[in-house]
C-alpha cells in the first residue's frame, strides 16, 4: 500500500548499541531505581516468611500474644519499607527514562530537520510525527512496565528457588522440568511476533500521515466534497494498525497458553516427585506441600520475566525507528569560515531528478558581490531547480558550484546558510510570537534588531499595531495574518538573518496581485547591499535586476539587462509584452 519512501529503520545491532549508550548516560538514576525495586522485591519476600513463623508458633502452642504481635509488626515494617521503596523507585525510574526519551525524540526531530527537504517530503510529515509521538510513547510504556516487573520478578525467583532448594534438592530438580517448555514457548513466540510489531509501527506511521493530510487539507477536501475519501483513508490505516495489534495479541495469548503448559508440567513434576518421595518416606508431607506451593509462587515472576522479551521486542520495534533517523548523516559542524562579499560561480551545471530527463543543463553563471540576477521563463523551465542548486539545497548531478572560490561540498551547511539564504514559495507563519518568527535563525538578536529587520521589510507599521507588538502570537491560532503579511515576515526573517547572498524563489507570488506591489518594494529593500538570484514570473520584480536570465527547457537562452533584452525582441520581449499587456 505504501509507495512512500519512509525514513530508515535501524537494524537490531545498531539499535542495541544506541540503547546501551542511552542507558549508560542515565545509569545513575537507573541503577538507583533498580536497587530500590530489588528492595521492593525483598520486602515482598518478608510477609510469607513471617507468616510461616507465626504458623510454627501457633502449632507449637508455645507462642505468646506478644510474640505474634511482634511478628505481625515485622510485616507492618516490611509494608512501610516496601511502600516507600516503591514510590522512590518509580520516581527514580522516571528520572532516568524521561530525560533519555526526551533527548531521543529531540535528537530525532533535530536530525530529521537537518535532512534534505526533498527526502523528508518523500517520507511524509506523518512518518516523523509518529516516530517522535507514537514510538516514544510505546517505549515509555514498555519501560514503565518492564523495569519494575522484571527486577521484582528476578528477586522473587531467586528467593523462591533458594527456598525450594533448601526444602529438598530432588523436588527443586523436578521443578526444572518446566524449563525446556518455557524456552520452547519463547522461541516459538519471538520470531513470530517481531514482524507484527514492525508492521504495526509502520501502519501507525501511515495512520499519522493520513490524519495529518486530512487535518491540514480539511478546507480543500470539504470544498471539493472529498472529505469522505480522506476519512476512508484514515479509517483504512487506523484499521490496519488495529489488525496488527489484535493479531500480535492473539499470538501473545497463545504464548500465555504455552507458558501455562510449562507451569503445569513443572507443577505436576513437583507433585509426582513429592508423591513418590513421601511414599518412600524420603520427605515429609509438609515439605512436599511447601515445594508445590513455592513452585506455584514462581508462576507470576517467571511469566513476568518471559514477557520482558515481548516488551523488549515491542519497544525495540519503536526504538529501531528512532535510531534509524539518528543514523542519518549528521550535519557537519561549523568550520567558522566567514564568507564575506563572496563571488558565486556555477560551472557546467546540469541536473536531473532520479533517472528523469535533465531539468537544468549547461549552466555557467557568475554572480558578483552585490549583483542582482533575475531568472524568468515559463513554469517548468528549470528555474526552481536552478534556484535550489544556487541555494545549496540540491546538489547538481554535473558541474560545480563555488562561493568565494570554495566548492559547496567543502563548506559545512551551517556556514553556507549563514552567508546564503533561500526564500521559497512556501509561506509559513510559525505558531509563535512575531519576534520568534523574525529572529528564527538568530534568537540572540535584540528587540531593536528585530524592529530594524521589520522596518526593512516594510512591516514595522502593522506589527506595531498588533495587540502585543513583537510578542503577539501569530500563525495557527494566533493573530490572523494575510498571505502578504506572512510573506513580509519571511522577508523580515531574511533581513534579520543578514546573509550576503539571497535566493528568492517566487517569494512574492503567493500574495496574489493585489498585495504584490508592497511586497516587491519590501523585497527590493531586503536585497539592498546583498547579492541576489531572483526567480520571478512577476516581471516588475525582474526588470529592476542588474541582469536577467531567461530559461527554457533547462537552458539559459537569454542573458542581459531589461532594456537590452526587450530591444532584442526574443523570448523575454515576448514575456514582457504579455506581462505589460493591459
Amino acid at each position, binding site marked *: 500500500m505504501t509507495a512512500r519512501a519512509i525514513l530508515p529503520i535501524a537494524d537490531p545491532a545498531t539499535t542495541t548499541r544506541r540503547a546501551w549508550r542511552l542507558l549508560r548516560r542515565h545509569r545513575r538514576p537507573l541503577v538507583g531505581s533498580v536497587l530500590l525495586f530489588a528492595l521492593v522485591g525483598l520486602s515482598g519476600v518478608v510477609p510469607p516468611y513471617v507468616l510461616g513463623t507465626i504458623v510454627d508458633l501457633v502449632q507449637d502452642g508455645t507462642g505468646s500474644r506478644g510474640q505474634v504481635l511482634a511478628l505481625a509488626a515485622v*510485616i507492618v515494617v516490611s509494608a512501610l519499607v516496601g511502600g516507600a521503596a516503591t514510590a522512590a523507585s518509580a520516581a527514580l525510574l522516571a528520572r532516568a527514562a524521561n530525560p533519555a526519551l526526551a533527548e531521543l525524540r529531540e535528537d530525532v526531530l533535530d536530525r530529521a530537520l537537518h535532512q534534505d527537504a526533498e527526502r523528508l517530503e518523500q517520507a511524509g510529515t506523518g512518518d516523523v510525527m509518529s516516530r517522535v509521538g507514537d514510538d516514544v510513547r510505546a517505549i515509555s510504556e514498555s519501560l514503565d512496565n518492564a523495569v519494575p516487573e522484571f527486577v521484582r520478578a528476578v528477586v522473587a525467583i531467586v528467593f523462591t528457588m533458594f527456598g525450594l532448594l533448601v526444602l529438598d534438592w530432588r523436588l527443586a530438580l523436578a521443578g526444572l522440568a518446566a524449563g525446556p517448555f518455557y524456552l520452547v514457548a519463547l522461541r516459538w513466540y519471538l520470531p513470530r511476533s517481531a514482524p507484527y510489531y514492525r508492521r504495526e509501527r509502520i501502519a501507525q506511521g501511515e495512520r499519522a500521515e493520513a490524519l495529518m493530510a486530512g487535518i491540514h487539507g480539511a478546507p480543500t477536501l470539504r470544498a471539493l466534497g472529498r472529505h469522505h475519501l480522506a476519512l476512508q483513508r484514515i*479509517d483504512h490505516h487506523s484499521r490496519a494498525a488495529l489488525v496488527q495489534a489484535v493479531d500480535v495479541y492473539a499470538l501473545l495469548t497463545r504464548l500465555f497458553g504455552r507458558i501455562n503448559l510449562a507451569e503445569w508440567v513443572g507443577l*505436576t513434576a513437583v*507433585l509426582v516427585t513429592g508423591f513418590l518421595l513421601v511414599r518412600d518416606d524420603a520427605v515429609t508431607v509438609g515439605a512436599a506441600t511447601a515445594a508445590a506451593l513455592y513452585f506455584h509462587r514462581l508462576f507470576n515472576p517467571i511469566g513476568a520475566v518471559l514477557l520482558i522479551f515481548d516488551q523488549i521486542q515491542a519497544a525495540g520495534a519503536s526504538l529501531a525507528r528512532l535510531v534509524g533517523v539518528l543514523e542519518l548523516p549528521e550535519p557537519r559542524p561549523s568550520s567558522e569560515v566567514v564568507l564575506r562579499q563572496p563571488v558565486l560561480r556555477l560551472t557546467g551545471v546540469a541536473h536531473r531528478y532520479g533517472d528523469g530527463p535533465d531539468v537544468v543543463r549547461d549552466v555557467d553563471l557568475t554572480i558578483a558581490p552585490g549583483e542582482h540576477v533575475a531568472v524568468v521563463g515559463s513554469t517548468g523551465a528549470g528555474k526552481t531547480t536552478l534556484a535550489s542548486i544556487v541555494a545549496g539545497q540540491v546538489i547538481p548531478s554535473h558541474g560545480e558550484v563555488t562561493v568565494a572560490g570554495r566548492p559547496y561540498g567543502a563548506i559545512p551547511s551551517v556556514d553556507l546558510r*549563514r552567508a546564503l539564504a533561500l526564500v521559497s514559495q512556501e509561506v509559513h507563519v510559525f505558531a509563535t510570537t512575531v519576534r520568534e518568527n523574525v529572529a528564527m535563525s538568530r534568537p540572540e538578536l535584540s528587540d531593536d534588531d528585530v524592529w530594524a529587520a521589520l522596518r526593512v521589510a516594510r512591516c514595522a507599521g502593522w506589527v506595531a499595531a498588533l495587540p502585543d507588538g513583537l510578542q503577539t502570537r501569530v500563525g495557527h491560532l494566533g493573530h490572523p495574518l494575510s498571505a502578504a503579511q506572512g510573506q513580509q515576515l519571511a522577508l523580515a526573517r531574511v533581513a534579520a538573518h543578514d546573509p550576503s547572498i539571497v535566493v528568492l524563489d517566487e517569494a512574492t507570488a503567493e500574495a*496574489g496581485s493585489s498585495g504584490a506591489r508592497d511586497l516587491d518594494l519590501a523585497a527590493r529593500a531586503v536585497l539592498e547591499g546583498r547579492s541576489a538570484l531572483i526567480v520571478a514570473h512577476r516581471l516588475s520584480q525582474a526588470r529592476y535586476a542588474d541582469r536577467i536570465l531567461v530559461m527554457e527547457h533547462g537552458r539559459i537562452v537569454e542573458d542581459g539587462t531589461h532594456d537590452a533584452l526587450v530591444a532584442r525582441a526574443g523570448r523575454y520581449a515576448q514575456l514582457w509584452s504579455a506581462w505589460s499587456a493591459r
Partner: protein
Amino acid sequence: MLRRTIWRQRRRLLLGFPLLIAWQLGEAMTPVVIGMVVDHGVATGDTRAFLLWLLVLAALMAGFSLSYRFGGRLGLRSIQEESHALRSEIAGHVLDPRGADTDELPGEVLSLATADADMTGMVVRQLGFALGSIVAVLAIGGYLLVTDWVVGVLVLVGTPLVVAVTQLLAPMVARRTEAQQETVARASGVASDLMAGLRPLKGIGAEDAATQRYRVASRAAQRASITMAGAWGVLAGVSSGLSVLFLGVVAAVAGVRALDDAITLGQFIAIVGVAQYLAEPILALGELSAQAAASLASGRRISRFLQTPALVEGGALTPAAPPRTLRFDKVTAGPLKDLDLEVRQGELVALVADTPLADDAVIRLLHGTLRPDRGRVLLGPHPLDDLTLASRRDALLVNDHHADLFEGSIHDAIDPRRDLSEEQLSALLAASAGTDVIAAHPEGLDHRIRASGGTLSGGQRQRLTLARALAENRPVLVLHEPTSAVDAVTEQRIAAGLREARRPHATLVLTASPALLDVADVVVVVRNGTVVGRARHRELLRRDPEYAGRVAR
C-alpha cells in the same frame, strides 16, 4: 464518555468480562487444588486419588488458560476497537462538511487521535480488572467469613476502607496525568508546526533554532512526565504498603485468635494462605481508579474537542435543480459595505478590490464562515444560508488561493472517480495549462504527487488545482488569484482557456491580473468595501486612472 464506550463494546464485554473473571478465579483456585492433591493423594499415598486430583488440576489450569486466551482477546479487541472508533470520530469531526472551529494545532489533534484515543480505550481494561478484583475480594471475604466470622468481617470491611484511602490520591494522580498529556500534545503541536514550515526553515538554516523550540516543549513534557510518574509512584507505594499492612493486621488478629483457641490451627493456616492473595486485588483497585481517572481525563479532552462548534451551519433547503447564478445583494460584512454583485449563467465576472481584506471577506461569505451583517448572498433565488451544505456544494465551488493537493496520482487529483472522458480531461488540462505539467513528468497523468504537493513547483500546483476545480464542473465557480504563480505567457493561455471552459456556467474571479481581467465579461471594482465601477477591463483602464494604477505592473 465511559458509558458510551461500554455501550459500544457491550457485546464483546458481555462475553469477555465473565471469561476474564473466570480466569482470575481459576488462578486463585490453583493453590486450593494443590492442597487437594496433597491432602487426598500425597498424604494418603492413594495413587488413584492422586491421579484424579492431578487431572482436576490440569483441567483447572487448561480452563483458566483458555478463559484468558479468549477473554483477553475480546478485551484487547474492544480496547482497540474503541480507540479506533474515537479516532474515526475525531477525524470525522475535523472533516465534517460543516467544518470544525477548533483551536488545536494539527499535531495536537494528532495527539488526541492517537495518545488520548488509546488512553480512553483503556477504560475497558480498567473496568474488566476492577470487576475481577471485586469478585476476588468478595470470594476471599466469603471464604473467610465461613472459616471465621471475625476475620471475614475484618476483611470485608477493611478492604474497602484501604481502597478508599488510596482513592484520596486518585484526583492528584489524574490531575498530573492530564497535565502530562497536555504538554505532550503541545510538543507534538510544535513538531507539526516546524514540519509544516520545513522549507522556510531550511532556507535560512534555522534548523538548530527550530529544534531549540521543540526542545523547550519536549522538556516541559519531560518535567510533567516526571511529576506524573512521581504521583503514580506514591499511589503505588501507598496502595502496596497499605495492602501488606492490612495483611499484618489480619495476621495479628487471626494469630491471637488461634492462640486463644477461637480458631483451629487448620483454620489459621487457611486464613493466612488466602489473605496473602488479598494484596493483589487491593493493589489493583488502588491503581485502577487512578488509571480510570487518567482515561476519563483523556476522554474529556476528546469530548471537548468533539463539541467544538461547526464553522458553518447548513440550512434545510434542497432546491430541485442546482442554482446557476450568484448574487451579492447589498451585503455589509467585515470591510464590505452594501456590496452588490451579480454573476449570471454564462458570465465570467472579475472583482478587483483595493485591499486583500475585501477579497478574503468575499471568500469567507461564500464559505459561510462570515455572515452578512446586512443584505444577502444568493445562490440562484435562494439565500445561501437557507441551503443545505450538500446543495451548496452541488452548485458552488470556491477554489481557495491556498487549495491543497493530496497524495496520489495527478489523475486522482483531477478526477478521482474517473468520470471524465479522455476528451473532457484533455480539454480542461489545456484550459488550465495543466498539459505542460503533465508533459514535464515522464509518467504523465500517473505521476504521483507527494503529500502537500511537494514534488511540484508553485506554478504547477496552481495549475493542477485549477484543473481540478474545472473538472468539478459546478454551475458556479469562484477563483481567488488563480494565476499568481505562473508566468505571463502561461497566464494568457489560462485566461483564454478558462473563459472557454466556463462558457456554459457562472464564474467569479478575484484578481488584479490584467490577462484575466481582459477576458472577463464585466469587471467589478470595489473600493472601500463598495462597488465603484462596473465595466469591461479596457473601458475601466481608459476612464478610471486609479484602476489603471491598481492593475498596472
